[in-house]
C-alpha cells in the first residue's frame, strides 16, 4: 500500500469506509496516552453515545468500560522505559457492538502474572466475579496493581464477555512485549451468569492494522460523524498530541478547515441528512505532516470542486494572497452560498503546497472524495 499515491490511498480508505452506518464510529489513536487524552476520547464517545438510541443503562455501562479500559493503558505506561513505543487505542462501534482495544508495551517478566490474572477472571461466572470484586475492594488496598485487577474484573462483569488478549514481540527490545487487550460490549446484551466466548479474529485484525499504522506513522484516524462537537474534540486531542511549534500551529489551523469542510460539505448515501460521515487520517513522514480526509460527495458537485482545487493548485504565492483578499472582502458570496472555496485558498496560503485529491465514482449519484495536504 502506497500512501503517497493518492489514487491508491483513496481506494484503501474507501475499503475501510464504505460500509459505515449512522452512529458507527471508529477512532484510532497511536501515541502517548495521557489523562487529558483519555478524557477527550471519552467525551468524543459520550457525544456519540448521546446520539445513539441505546438506553441510559447501556450507555453508562459502555462509558464505564471505556474509562477502565483506557486507564489500564496509563497504568502500564511506566513499565517500559522505551519512549519510542507508542500505545494504541482503537474504539470501534459497528451496529450493536462496541469494541475497545488497547495496545501498550509491557515488560516481558510481567506476562505470566497478567495471563494468570486474566485467565482466572475468564474462568469465573458473573456472580463469582461480583464476589471477587467485593473481596478485592475489602482486602486489598487499592494500589496501582490492585486497581488494575479490579478494573479487569469490573470490565468482565459488566461486559458479560470473556477478556481477550494477545501479545506480540518487539524487534527493537527483547525485554518488552506489546499487550493487546480487547473488550466488546453488545448494546442488546442479554444477561446470563456465564461469560461469553469472544471472537479472537478482531484482535488479530487490530494487531495487523497496528503494523500498518506503525509503517505509515499514522497518529490518528477518525471515522464517523463529523458534527461540530466531534470536530472540536478531535482538535483538542490533536492539539494535546503535538507540542506547540510554528509547524504544529499551522497543522492545527489547517485541520480546522479540513475537518469543518467535511462537516459542511459531506453528502450522505443513505439519505439521512443530519449526519456527515467522513474519515480522516493524520500521519507524519520525513518530518512532514500529511492530512487526508475523505467523504461522499454528489456527482453533480464533482466538476465544480475539482475545478476550484485545480485553480488553487495553479496559483503562486502572490496570486493566492490576491485571491484571498478578493474572496474575504466579498460578502455577497458568503451569504448566498457555502462554496466560496475560501477554505482551500486559506489552506494553500498557510501551507504553500498543492493539494492531492481524488474522486472515486461509487454509483450514479455519489463519489468518494479524498483530499490530501502535506505540511
Amino acid at each position: 500500500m502506497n500512501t503517497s499515491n493518492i489514487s491508491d490511498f483513496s481506494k484503501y480508505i474507501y475499503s475501510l469506509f464504505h460500509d459505515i452506518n449512522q452512529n458507527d464510529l471508529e477512532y484510532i489513536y497511536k501515541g502517548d496516552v495521557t489523562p487529558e487524552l483519555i478524557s477527550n476520547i471519552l467525551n468524543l464517545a459520550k457525544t456519540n453515545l448521546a446520539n445513539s438510541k441505546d438506553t441510559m443503562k447501556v450507555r453508562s455501562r459502555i462509558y464505564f468500560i471505556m474509562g477502565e479500559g483506557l486507564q489500564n493503558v496509563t497504568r502500564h505506561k511506566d513499565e517500559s522505559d522505551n519512549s519510542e513505543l507508542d500505545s494504541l487505542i482503537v474504539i470501534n462501534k459497528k451496529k450493536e457492538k462496541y469494541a475497545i482495544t488497547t495496545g501498550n508495551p509491557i515488560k516481558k517478566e510481567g506476562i505470566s502474572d497478567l495471563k494468570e490474572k486474566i485467565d482466572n477472571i475468564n474462568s469465573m461466572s458473573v456472580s463469582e466475579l461480583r464476589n471477587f470484586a467485593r473481596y478485592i475492594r475489602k482486602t486489598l488496598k487499592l494500589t496501582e496493581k490492585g486497581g488494575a485487577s479490579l478494573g479487569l474484573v469490573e470490565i468482565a462483569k459488566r461486559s458479560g464477555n470473556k477478556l481477550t488478549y494477545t501479545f506480540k514481540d518487539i524487534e527493537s527490545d527483547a525485554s518488552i512485549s506489546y499487550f493487546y487487550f480487547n473488550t466488546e460490549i453488545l448494546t442488546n446484551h442479554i444477561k446470563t451468569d456465564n461469560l461469553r466466548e469472544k471472537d479472537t479474529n478482531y484482535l488479530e485484525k487490530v494487531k495487523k492494522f497496528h503494523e500498518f499504522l506503525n509503517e505509515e506513522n499514522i497518529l490518528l484516524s477518525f471515522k464517523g460523524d463529523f458534527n461540530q462537537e466531534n470536530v472540536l474534540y478531535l482538535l483538542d486531542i490533536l492539539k494535546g498530541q503535538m507540542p506547540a511549534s510554528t509547524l504544529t500551529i499551522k497543522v492545527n489551523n489547517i485541520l480546522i478547515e479540513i475537518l469543518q469542510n467535511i462537516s459542511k460539505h459531506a453528502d450522505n448515501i443513505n439519505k439521512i441528512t443530519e449526519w456527515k460521515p467522513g474519515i480522516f487520517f493524520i500521519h507524519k513522514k520525513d518530518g512532514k505532516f500529511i492530512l487526508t480526509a475523505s467523504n461522499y460527495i454528489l456527482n453533480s458537485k464533482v466538476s465544480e470542486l475539482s475545478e476550484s482545487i485545480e485553480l488553487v493548485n495553479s496559483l503562486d504565492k502572490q496570486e493566492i494572497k490576491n485571491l484571498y483578499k478578493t474572496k474575504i472582502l466579498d460578502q455577497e458570496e458568503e451569504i448566498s452560498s457555502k462554496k466560496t472555496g475560501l477554505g482551500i485558498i486559506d489552506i494553500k496560503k498557510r501551507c504553500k503546497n498543492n493539494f492531492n485529491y481524488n474522486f472515486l465514482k461509487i454509483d450514479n449519484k455519489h463519489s468518494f472524495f479524498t483530499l490530501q495536504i502535506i505540511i
Partner: protein
Amino acid sequence: MTPLILEPTADTPKIHFDANKGYFEVANLSLPEDAVEFYKPVMAWLNEYKQNPNSLTTFNFNLEYFNTASSKQIIQILLLLENMHKINKVLIRWHYKDIDEDMQDLGEEYDDIIDVDFEMVEY
C-alpha cells in the same frame, strides 16, 4: 452604552466591549459553524457604537485561532473600524504568539487591506 460581554465557549470567542472603560477585545478562538449568526449581535453593538464613538478606540484581537467563516466576519469588524477611523481615531492591536507565523501573517495582511493603524503585539 451597555457593555457587550460574551463569555467564550468551546467554539466561540470571548467578546468584551465596554465603551465607558474604553475596552474592546475579541479573544480565545472562533470556530462556530454559523459565524454570520454568532457575529450578528457583535456587529449590531459596534454599529451602534459607531454613531457616537470615543475619540480613540483601541481594539484588541487576541485570538488563538479562527476558521475562515469567522475571518469573513472579522474583516467586517475591521471594515467598520476603518470607516469609524475616518472621523475618530482607531488603533488595532493584533496579538499573536511568537511561534504563530500564521497569526502574524494574517495580521500583516489585514493591515494591508484595512486603512487603520495596526500594532502587532507578540507574546
